[in-house]
């Protein structure tokens, strides 16, 4: 079986390459704050985790949520409130944000999961808009002002997060934890069933899987991880505002994921880095950022639909297969 041996022999090489690249990436992230502005890096890490959490749904279950800002921004409010008003320790504040996002995810997921495709996206969008409106109206979010001046405090009581480097490494640790969690979920017995549902939902049903429960489970996990990112962002930037719960944010995370590569683990993180870098470095110039991002998006859809990471992986896969 020549075709089969090709597939088998390509796998260990791919795995070795991934390990090496992963080690290089982690090393680069460890030294990055000495080269690049740490605040920028931290925002990239938060958005990268957000995009990876979003990709857990679209890339591995095939569900397009158009309301993920609810979980990102909602968690930011919960964390900011717990830390600023209740005086919580920052890590427990972030965990509360993630738990709150999971609860919101359960409600939104429960209502949306019964519909498919565009209807699913529309329901998540509508519920997201409702949540944004609630955030504008309820007193604890302080309307247009948002929650400002959230103290970073001391992590677990002894790590001073006002030190930019300490804050950076904590953010990096949270990102790596979230990224590892996603990797584990995708490569688990549960993740296997998610892939089966994405590949052929009717067949999964005919094998006795209650697919709605699996979808809801994945939705809650994705919401919780998006909340982890949002809560961390509230500590890093010391505020939580309406920007993070509005639909534009839901759109931005879709864009990041598409650019980086849907259904690849690192793609969304790369996409997040790219979009934020463009926004950041072009903000000062006269060139309108949105136009450039629009052009990149069009080029991406026309020329490399698998996204950046997807195209690179495909290139390596075909090369390995040819060389054996």
């Amino acid at each position, binding site marked *: 079986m020549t075709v089969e041996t090709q597939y088998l022999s390509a796998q260990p090489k791919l795995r070795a390459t991934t390990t090496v690249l992963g080690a290089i990436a982690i090393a680069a992230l460890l030294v990055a704050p000495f080269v690049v502005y740490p605040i920028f890096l931290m925002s990239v890490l938060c958005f990268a985790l957000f995009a990876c959490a979003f990709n857990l749904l679209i890339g591995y279950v095939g569900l397009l949520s158009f309301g993920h800002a609810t979980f990102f921004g909602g968690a930011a409010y919960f964390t900011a409130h717990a830390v600023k008003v209740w005086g919580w320790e920052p890590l427990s504040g972030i965990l509360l944000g993630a738990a709150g996002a999971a609860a919101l995810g359960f409600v939104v997921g429960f209502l949306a999961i019964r519909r498919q495709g565009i209807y699913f996206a529309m329901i998540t969008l509508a519920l997201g808009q409702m949540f944004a409106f609630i955030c504008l109206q309820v007193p604890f979010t302080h309307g247009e002002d948002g929650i400002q001046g959230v103290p970073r405090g001391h992590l677990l009581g002894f790590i001073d997060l006002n030190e930019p480097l300490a804050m950076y490494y904590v953010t990096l640790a949270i990102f790596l934890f979230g990224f590892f969690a996603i990797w584990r979920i995708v490569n688990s017995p549960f*993740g*296997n*069933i998610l*892939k089966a549902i994405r*590949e052929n939902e009717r067949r999964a*049903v005919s*094998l006795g899987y209650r697919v709605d429960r699996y979808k809801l489970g994945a939705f809650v996990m994705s919401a919780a991880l998006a909340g982890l990112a949002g809560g961390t962002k509230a500590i890093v930037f010391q505020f939580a505002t309406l920007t993070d719960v509005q639909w534009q944010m839901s759109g931005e995370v879709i864009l990041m994921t598409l650019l980086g590569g849907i259904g690849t683990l690192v793609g969304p993180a790369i996409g997040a880095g790219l979009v934020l870098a463009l926004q950041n470095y072009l903000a000062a110039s006269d060139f309108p950022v949105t136009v450039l991002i629009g052009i990149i998006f069009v080029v991406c859809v026309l020329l490399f639909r698998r996204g950046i990471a997807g195209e690179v992986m495909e290139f390596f896969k075909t090369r390995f297969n040819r060389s054996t």
Partner: protein
Amino acid sequence: MASTQPILSATGLTMEFRGFVAVKNVTLSVDEGTIHALIGPNGAGKTTVFNLLTKFLTPTRGQIVYRGADITAMKPAEVARLGLVRSFQISAVFPHLTVLDNVRIALQRPSNLATQFWRPLSALSGLDDRAMELIEAVGLRAYAHLPAVELSYGRKRALEIATTLALDPAMLLLDEPMAGMGHEDIGRISDLIRRIAQNRTVLMVEHNLNVVSDLCDRVTVLARGEILADGSYDAVSADPRVREAYMGTEHE
């Protein structure tokens, strides 16, 4: 071998789609341990009946009883959990997963290895032996690590049967298992179905009448959504109404 106890029976099944009656007052009973064929010309409603029996469609009227329990209002996943498992007319595999993964996915649920999101994939390696046995049984041993999409049509159907068998169902509903197959594949799949049916009940939709006469204990003929005849192959094929319904496409 064949007992007279019906394992699955449907009474007065009717399915209307916005005024179009696809299935009309179908009463059908499948005896435990038999191979039962559902035949009929194109558009007779065979696949609709399958969808009704496995609850992928809810009948407008009528009742379905499986092993003494009324399953008319159940969801398809629940019916599958009771051991009434179907295949599809268009081959239903998980295309980008390997042959081994396809079968393992079916094995995961009965083994309670489907919801663990915190464990590595290696937790599933305990299922490999059983999966390989099933793959071997349908003659796909050499393709176990290929993505299903790379298989030929006939092998995809074989994989589908292996996946279905992984659930160890009491009753299999096979929707045109030989459609589009070459001569050689037909022989292999026939043998396979005969082996499967030694301790199971099979209800199959089939167009190839050679296969039906060769394999099936009982035949139900459906035409225009209604039951035309029911009985042994010889009795049914001698029925003039059946010959008329088939007209030119009649066997021999």
